[in-house]
């Protein structure tokens, strides 16, 4: 039995209503833990005064410079003593989950046991950065909890100006749209940068995210400095049997309104079966005996829409891989940025393919480490120096896939034009 609860009239109101209540969960923990009694008191104080009362500090584990988010209370009495003394320290361990966030129950139970023993008993599954957030631990217990978590085969994630914990979608494990093995790529990349995760020494944070297709379930394009997003080069695959099944259920109106007219590049047309073009870049799926949906794969940008609507009848091709985009980030400081495409396609099937991905990541991080200003994200650095300087820095050739449109102003010095043309010609020759 723990000490008596503080009155929590505000938090009590968050126990009503049908959605699972985190307050009810905390109160359950508070039955056995003075720690959580005071955590609830602390949070109720925030609700009453509408302010936050945690401050940072430095708490870590041996050998690492990050991975722990320290929190000390700022609710003090006149003598400077914590009012909620059992919750005076409320640190979080950021633990990297298995890619795709799969668990057997034995593993989850083991986390619970460790956290009942050393921490508050509160675990967030998961933080927006993708970590298992073991929330609420005293300075004294941080190392002890970490030792046991580490023994389980888990490692701490990043915090501060470091490579951060990554996320990959469920992908190959259970999704037919997957264009590469996200988990393998995730593991290969992240485990190559453990030093940059555990010992923050970059200008600012650097995030990787892995999505298996353009649906981008991991929000990679906007939430990562380097986004790996699946795509394919050959034709959309089709399955006539599933196509007919879809059409029988949904009919022509839905086909036109929801599929054909929503293709962003007008790559879809309805054709009589005999009129489907025979070119190599055309694929078609049967709707009934008479008509087909024809796809011009040269026009298709692999946006995923038609495949999402007619899953199974349509599917990504077989020559799969990923596009790489660089520089996504949120508001601070110049405003939100989407990633910019810098590699239209790379294969990600073999260990060697993944090594190439790691090499690319390494050259981007090296360039970032050397050229970004303090507290500048990769996207801001590219905006400051221009994409071309960035590409030259990491050794990538320019490509018309990288732009929406060519420049719309003349403010550029072009006296190197002829040499650039010569280089392009030389490359073409070498490739031929």
């Amino acid at each position, binding site marked *: 039995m723990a000490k008596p609860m503080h009155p929590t009239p*505000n*938090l009590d*109101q*968050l126990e009503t*209503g049908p959605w699972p209540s*985190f307050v009810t*969960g905390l109160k359950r*923990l508070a039955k056995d833990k003075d720690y959580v009694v005071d955590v609830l008191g602390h*949070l109720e104080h925030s609700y009453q005064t*509408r302010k*936050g009362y945690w401050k940072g500090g430095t708490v870590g584990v041996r050998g690492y410079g990050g991975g722990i988010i320290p929190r000390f209370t700022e609710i003090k009495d006149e003598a400077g003593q914590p009012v909620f003394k059992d919750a005076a320290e409320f640190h*979080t361990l950021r633990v990297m989950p298995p890619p795709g*966030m*799969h*668990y*057997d*129950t034995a*593993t*989850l*139970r083991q986390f*619970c046991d460790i956290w009942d023993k050393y921490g508050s008993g*509160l*675990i967030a*599954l998961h933080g927006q950065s993708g970590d298992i957030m073991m*929330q609420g631990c005293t300075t004294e217990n941080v190392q002890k909890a970490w030792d046991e978590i580490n023994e389980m085969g888990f*490692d701490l994630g990043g915090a501060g100006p470091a490579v951060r914990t*990554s*996320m990959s979608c*469920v992908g*190959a494990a*259970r*999704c037919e749209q*997957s264009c590469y093995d996200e988990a393998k790529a*995730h*593991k290969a990349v992240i*485990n190559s940068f*453990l030093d940059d*995760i*555990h010992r923050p020494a970059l200008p600012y944070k650097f995030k990787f995210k892995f999505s298996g297709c*353009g*649906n981008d*379930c*991991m*929000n990679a*394009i*906007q*939430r990562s400095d380097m986004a790996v*997003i699946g795509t394919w080069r050959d034709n959309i695959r089709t399955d006539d049997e*599933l196509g007919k099944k879809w059409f029988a259920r949904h009919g022509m109106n839905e086909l036109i*309104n929801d599929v054909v007219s*929503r293709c962003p590049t007008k790559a879809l047309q309805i054709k009589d079966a005999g009129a489907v073009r025979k070119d190599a870049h055309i694929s078609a799926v049967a709707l009934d005996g008479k008509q087909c949906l024809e796809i011009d794969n040269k026009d298709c940008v692999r*946006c995923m*829409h038609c495949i999402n609507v007619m*899953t*199974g009848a349509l599917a990504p091709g077989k020559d799969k891989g990923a596009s790489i985009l660089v520089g996504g980030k*949120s*508001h601070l*400081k110049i405003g939100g940025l*989407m990633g910019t495409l810098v590699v239209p396609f790379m294969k990600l099937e073999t260990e060697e393919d993944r090594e190439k991905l790691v090499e690319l990541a390494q050259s981007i991080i090296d360039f970032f480490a050397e050229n970004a200003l303090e*507290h500048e994200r990769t996207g801001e650095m590219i905006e400051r120096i221009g994409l071309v300087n960035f590409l030259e820095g990491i050794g990538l050739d320019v490509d018309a896939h990288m732009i929406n449109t060519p420049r719309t102003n003349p403010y550029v010095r072009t006296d190197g034009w002829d040499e650039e043309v010569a280089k392009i010609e030389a490359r073409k020759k070498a490739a031929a």
Partner: protein
Amino acid sequence: MAEAQALRKAVECGVPDNDKYMHPTLLKNRGNWKYHDRPRPGVLHHVSHSGDQVWSVRAGTQRQMDTHTIRKLCDIAEQYAEGFVRFTIRSNIEYIVADQKKVDPLIAKLEGEGFPVGGTGNSVTMVAHTQGWLHCDIPGTDASGVVKSMMDQLYDEFKNEQMPNRVHLSTSCCEINCGGQADLAVIIQHTKPPKINHDLVANVCERPAVVARCPVAAIRPALVNGKPSLEVDEKKCICCGACYPPCPPMQINDPEHSKLAIWVGGKNSNARGKPTFMKMVASGLPNNAPRWPEVNEVVGRILRTYKADARPWERMADWIDRIGWPRFFEKTGLPFTKYLIDDWRGSRANLNASNHVRF
């Protein structure tokens, strides 16, 4: 013993292989899935090229979970499923079973224990959210409480698939926006410059770093009461709060003047149009803990309008693209104020450079 433990060296093992945490049918069919359908809201049925099938039952959780709740979810996995779970990016739990007969009893058990089954397809799924007052050092509001009050209101929309397309929500308790882009987001919007505690600045803050942090160069070093400190040009200040994390004596949070803003039309997916950023459509809503009724009123209003007016497969951004912003404001009844006209860098791209007008 205690000493031996104190000397333990970390094993820098990184991210573990996920093979041993994965349901065996998933492992066996990795990379070989053919298609899926949704037999009912909250259930995904995946079929492999090998002929194997799995059913995934998705349920909402409170994300910040106590160990009792996690153990209860484990009990359910062991008794009603096959011992394997995974979590989605939006903190929903998924139970994976290879036997269709287990689906209905599993759903009944989850719902009986208070975990709503849903969040798939064109439903309103769980809010991507952050830490707030519970744990963060810079929050203007709470995260879990705002989310609880939103999801209570959207409970039926989570359990059904009645929206035009999927609806992703996020909340952020500072303008940094950890919650990320979403169809609809609730984000703190401060309205007053930071209040500076000049006695503390010199000791606590690395002043050049703070000066460099400001997006509009409103901060400059100054001597205040004979002590080195910082001052803010309040005419320039856009009240973003970026100076507060590196310099806590520059308090930006204010119980009354830190408001909440609503943003719509963010989309990370490449499906149909390219990914889009969300746009601010309302602000000035009070930070009214513990249930934020004013915020929920606007959220509900926007979602109801979208539900009634958008066509199948239109995400929030696609819908507004079709109907245009004037009609968005008209239909939702939200006031279009001068603060919604962009004047940040690149803002010209957000103005109407045409005479395209819908009447």
